[in-house]
């Protein structure tokens, strides 16, 4: 069976799961307050233009905890869809390779993150427009700047998604895998200030945003991405996490 068809099957399983609500809720929750707080963007504490400040402040919450939190919840929801009514047992007794099955599910997880990315860009433009009307000052940034920036944040979330996926595969209790995932999000703000931040995938999107912050407001953070230790580490972590989850996928059900 073709991989693309399998991914289609996996997408179909999410019908009526209200996953779009889970993707949209954090986006809305992050942007509505920033419209009301837009006045504070006019008088920033560091040297930064209001429109950049509005953009960075809005995406700060997204990249620190909302992207990771949605990934955690989506992971557990994907796993729970299989486990709730023993759907996984049926899948394992059909002629599909478990590795393919696991990869298809991981692809769906990435796809869900992509959907949220589109939603968050849309929410940014809506709220930036609303804030501009409210404060009588343009908060809008060019799409040529916004879209690559947000795309980078989400690309930076892929290694983290792989790690969450691995945790979800290894730990069958939904509350525990969600708990570990959520708890691991919290210290990322600590890690980006250390030298070993590149070993902690949960901090990647936040790191990328801080670099953007450093570029538009000097002295806040570095402005150059340390590609060298980071890229190999990120690739290694992603590959290892995906490999482990492929190997262990369905193991609990096949005991």
């Amino acid at each position: 069976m073709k991989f693309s068809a399998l991914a289609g099957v996996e997408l179909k399983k999410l019908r009526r799961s209200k996953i779009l609500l889970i993707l949209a809720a954090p986006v809305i929750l992050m942007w509505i307050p920033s419209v009301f707080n837009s006045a504070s963007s006019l008088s920033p504490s560091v040297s930064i233009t209001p429109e950049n400040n509005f953009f960075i402040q809005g995406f700060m919450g997204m990249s620190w905890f909302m992207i990771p939190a949605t990934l955690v919840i989506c992971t557990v929801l994907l796993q729970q869809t299989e486990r709730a009514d023993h759907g996984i047992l049926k899948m394992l007794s059909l002629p599909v390779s478990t590795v393919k099955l696991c990869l298809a599910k991981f692809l769906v997880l990435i796809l869900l993150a992509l959907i949220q990315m589109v939603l968050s860009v849309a929410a940014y433009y809506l709220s930036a427009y609303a804030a501009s009307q409210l404060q009588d000052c343009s908060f809008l940034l060019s799409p040529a700047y916004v879209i690559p920036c947000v795309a980078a944040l989400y690309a930076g979330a892929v290694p983290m998604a792989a790690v969450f996926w691995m945790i979800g595969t290894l730990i069958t209790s939904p509350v525990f895998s969600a708990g570990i995932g959520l708890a691991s999000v919290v210290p990322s703000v600590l890690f980006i200030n250390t030298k070993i931040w590149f070993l902690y995938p949960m901090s990647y999107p936040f790191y990328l945003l801080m670099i953007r912050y450093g570029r538009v407001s000097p002295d806040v953070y570095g402005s150059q991405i340390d590609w060298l230790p980071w890229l190999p580490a990120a690739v290694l972590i992603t590959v290892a996490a995906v490999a482990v989850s492929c190997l262990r996928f369905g193991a609990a059900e096949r005991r």
Partner: protein
Amino acid sequence: MNRTNIIETQHLTKSYGDFTAVSDLNLHIRRGSVYGFLGPNGAGKSTTMKMLLGLTRPTGGIFQIDGKSYPRDRVAILREIGSFIEAPAFYGNLTGEENLDLIRRILGLPKSSVEEALDLVGLTQFRKRMARKYSLGMKQRLGLAGALIGRPPILILDEPTNGLDPVGIHEIRTLIRSLPKRYDCTVLVSSHLLPEVELMADDIGILNHGRLLFEGTTDELKQEALSSGLPADNLEEAFLAMIDEDNRRPEEAPGRRTDRRTERQTDRTDPASARKRRTTGGERK
């Protein structure tokens, strides 16, 4: 492997820690037959079936399905088997039709196969309802439809009539009985009720505490009962007496019995006698 047997197991064993769920099992399932797998709850029927499907790894022994062996040919084996294990497995958020469509896509079957399967188990009128909202009997039928879809050459059904009403039970039994002729397939069906198995199956295997007490046709079971002084006119009672006697056997007995069984296996080389055997032979008196 014997060509007339589509499924064969050799010394198949599964233990969880110090508990042995299936012990040294030697099954012989003829091509094109309905094989009734009989035993009380917890006898190891489901575990055996799960092993055949690769859902759980045997701790000992091997098995061949249509000449293929696990784990090397897992996907190839599964391509030939339609299965229905324990509690029905499905996706609650999808309708019955959508659930079957998933399976159809994975198996690469034509669209019409969904309708056919729904029709076969009598779910056509409920096909648009979410599976979560199905009654127990409907879930059971959905599970059966998922096994029957695409007319697989081998069917493994674990207590398929559980939770059905008497009419449903009769319907499903008749369906299973007719399957080998209709679709030219082999059926392994488990149950804890002898009368049910008697109505459906050509061959019977009786399992208790993970050990095979008997394997053969219903007629052979009757003869067996006669010769060992069990009530032969009522097979149900013979079955119960057989289980009861096995339960009363002293604890150290399994080791002794295993020895005797291996003896029997060594002289079971000719195919004729391979069909007729009582694994826990003559010591029953």
